[in-house]
């Protein structure tokens, strides 16, 4: 029973952290209707900025979170404005040239980081790292718990922002009908840039949360990009509630898969869910839960 409980808690906590990474992607996919393959690399940039802030300014990652997010927001905004946005609507032999561009940008960003910081594994030990909390025979790592709380707060803030503010509503409107948004006097191009920046900042937040928990190296983003896709497809594009529930489902599936089937198979379960959703529930959970 304790094993089950432990597995469950690990899954939920991890799922929450996945959700914040995925929510940035689902937002970008909802508005731009493209797959952003640079999402993971941008998250990793956030992690390195956090590393620098920790090592040179002594900021605890949870404090560095805000400046890191601001930096990544700006990077994302500019990338969309001057690079990815430029390619939209260009007719090419291979379709999805925007997707390929995000892919190439992701590789380029990774290489920049690799050149600056080398491929070496780095790890930081801020306060709270490695501290545990024992509860009814289960162990909860404190940074996981804090990460989960931060992620949940951001998801809630984002949900509130989208539902209650004019800017947030403009983002939603642009994702539902870009032309109609322009009729309303919304500068859809700027909203798209803004959304890309916001999505990137959220990914960076997810990355920062992971800092006290895992090693950092330039390709650290690989598995998280995959998970973000899985969750986005699972939850439905542009849906915050979908991303949160998708994150929790994926976290739980991986956790239970690892515990009861073997750690190496945890990831496979995620991909299998992904394929099944793609094939049999296009639109994802959003179709079931409404919004």
């Amino acid at each position, binding site marked *: 029973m304790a094993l089950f409980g432990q597995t469950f808690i690990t899954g939920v906590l991890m799922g929450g952290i996945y959700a914040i990474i995925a929510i940035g992607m689902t937002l970008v996919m909802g508005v731009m209707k493209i797959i952003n393959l640079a999402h993971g690399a941008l998250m990793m940039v956030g992690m390195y900025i956090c590393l620098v802030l920790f090592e040179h300014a002594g900021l605890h990652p949870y404090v560095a979170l805000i400046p890191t997010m601001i930096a990544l927001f700006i990077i994302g905004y500019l990338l969309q404005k001057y690079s990815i946005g430029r390619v939209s609507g260009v007719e090419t032999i291979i*379709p999805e040239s925007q997707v390929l561009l995000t892919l190439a940008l992701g590789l380029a960003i990774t290489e920049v980081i690799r050149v600056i910081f080398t491929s070496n594994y780095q790890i930081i030990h801020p306060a709270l790292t490695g501290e545990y909390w024992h509860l009814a025979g289960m162990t909860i790592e404190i940074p996981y718990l804090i990460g989960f709380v931060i992620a949940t707060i951001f998801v809630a803030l984002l949900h509130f922002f989208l539902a209650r503010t004019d800017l947030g509503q403009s983002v939603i409107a642009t994702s539902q009908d870009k032309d109609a948004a322009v009729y309303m006097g919304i500068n859809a191009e700027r909203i798209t840039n803004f959304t890309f920046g916001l999505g990137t900042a959220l990914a960076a937040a997810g990355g920062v949360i992971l800092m006290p928990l895992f090693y950092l190296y330039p390709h650290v983003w690989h598995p998280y990009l995959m998970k973000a896709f899985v969750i986005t497809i699972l939850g439905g594009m542009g849906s915050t509630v979908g991303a949160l529930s998708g994150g929790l489902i994926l976290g739980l599936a991986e956790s239970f898969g690892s515990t009861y089937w073997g750690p190496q198979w945890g990831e496979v379960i995620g991909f299998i869910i992904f394929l099944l959703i793609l094939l049999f529930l296009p639109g994802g959970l959003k179709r079931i839960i409404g919004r």
Partner: protein
Amino acid sequence: MEKKRQWLILAMLGILCIVVPPFMGTYAVHVLILVMMWITMALGWDILGGKTGQISFGHAIFFGLGAYGGGLLFLHWNITPWWGMAAGPVLAIIVGIPIGLVCFRLRGPYFALAMLALNEIIAIVFTNLDTLTNGATGIDCARTWGAEKLPYYYIALVIAAFAIFVTYRIQNSKYGYYFVSIREDQDAAEALGIPTTRYKIYAMIPSAGITGLAGALYMNYISSIYPETVFALEAISIFMILAVLIGGAGSLWGPVLGGAIFAGLDEILRATIGPISFLVFAVIAVLIIMFMPDGIIGSWPKVRAYLRRRKLTTGSEG
């Protein structure tokens, strides 16, 4: 006249490819082998991606299966991996057909994503099914010709020539026309009586097979394979797309040029500027997608028109 000249250039290039390498250094021959391998891979990807418009982010599946075809024969029955040249492509095709049957229901980016997921699944499966694949330890075999490179080069050359021949034949047949029709407009293709799903599968077969052939070559030449190298998402699946993109998708010579430039440039940059070589590469890819999205061959008419205009205006000024 034009056609005759093209054949002449081609024949000369062919002769150069055959005659010159024996006089080159070992390293140069090694680079040429990689060039031939990448040309083969780029052509393989392009049949499905460039001609039929089904962007696959998971062609490492077929490369890896091609490599493992020979590898498994060697591992389990101690048969020379040269048989992998037949077994590898066949394995790739056998796996490719059901993948196509399932994933061709998805359009556009969703197909790309599904292939990406499958790539990861298969890589994990091959890493963890120890009894079947020897797991992460991979498979090692002895090289037939030891440190000698030339025999491998000629085999690679024959394989690349075969890929070019297959692509040429496809392009000049009903299949080629149907593939491109599907890429350009699936509804129009259906209205012309083209069973689009069936023809996508028809495109998958040579695409998987040729990519698998390149994998089989890799197995024999490098002589050791690991799941994380032959099923690599980035170093194989995505680089294949970038190679085609640089040269120009959907044509015969685009992938050939792209594969050659990609493999050649990769080696040269690595030898000259070392650690930042890959950064330079990625930046080139970004610039190509932004400013020459149809690659060198595809954008050539535009570039030529631009140069001509420049010449004309400077000429009139002078």
